[in-house]
């Protein structure tokens, strides 16, 4: 992640990976049409990336929270690291139950963060967040 100048807060959208991390899609065929433009959701990359989601699910289960709570907690925990700004995750929710779920704060410990770092270091997420025609890092 690029360094953020002092005093500028960060808004973290799609903290739950557009449903990917909560196992909303078990196979590439489950992915709704509007998300299929995203490389990480495409058939040839899906199975690999789903393994990472599986690891997040396992960690959440061990912790006794939902995967969404775990993922949102991880985003918030990043703000503890030196040089990181205030981070506000903005998970989407379409029901009151999901709002309640998302807003139950779960503290991800430094030890858990280290485990996640180790998983990320070894796991190669397949392909970019966006296709070339959708600009990022301009």
């Amino acid at each position, binding site marked *: 992640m690029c360094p953020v100048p002092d005093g500028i807060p960060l*808004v973290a959208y799609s903290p739950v990976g557009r449903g990917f991390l909560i196992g909303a899609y078990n196979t590439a065929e489950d992915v709704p049409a509007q998300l299929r433009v995203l490389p990480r959701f495409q058939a040839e990359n899906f199975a690999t990336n789903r393994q990472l989601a599986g690891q997040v699910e396992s960690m959440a289960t061990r912790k006794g929270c939902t995967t969404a709570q775990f993922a949102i907690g991880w985003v918030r925990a990043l703000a503890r690291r030196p040089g990181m700004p205030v981070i506000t995750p*903005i998970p989407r929710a379409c029901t009151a139950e999901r*709002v309640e779920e998302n807003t139950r704060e779960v503290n991800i410990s430094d030890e858990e963060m280290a485990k996640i770092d180790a998983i990320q270091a070894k796991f190669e997420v397949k392909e970019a967040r966006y296709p070339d025609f959708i*600009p990022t*890092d*301009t």
Partner: protein
Amino acid sequence: MLAGSNFWNGGEFYGPPDGNSLVLLEKYFAQRPEDAGNVVLSIKGAFNHDTMGADGSPEAIRQSIDGCIAQLRGRKRIDIFECARRDPNVPLVLSLGTIDKEYVQTGKVGGVDLSEV
């Protein structure tokens, strides 16, 4: 709000024009005007449906922000406005300058945000 989640993000193009974030927000704050002062509202706009990308021109920004403000009908101020990404055809200083000089400095919008730059 009950859970203390008061940073809300919406988009002019999230949903059809007659059912977008601003329409829903206007209905909400009509029912709960007391929440208006407690919510930090960030709105994304300046999206061109023909090009399916950001339009960072001063004209498009004005149309977008004016439209969003109108849809809110005075019930809630837009605290932060951001363009839907960066328009490669318009210098960022022009886009952000328009938002700052014509909207932030006049109090119509609280501040400016950058999305996926």
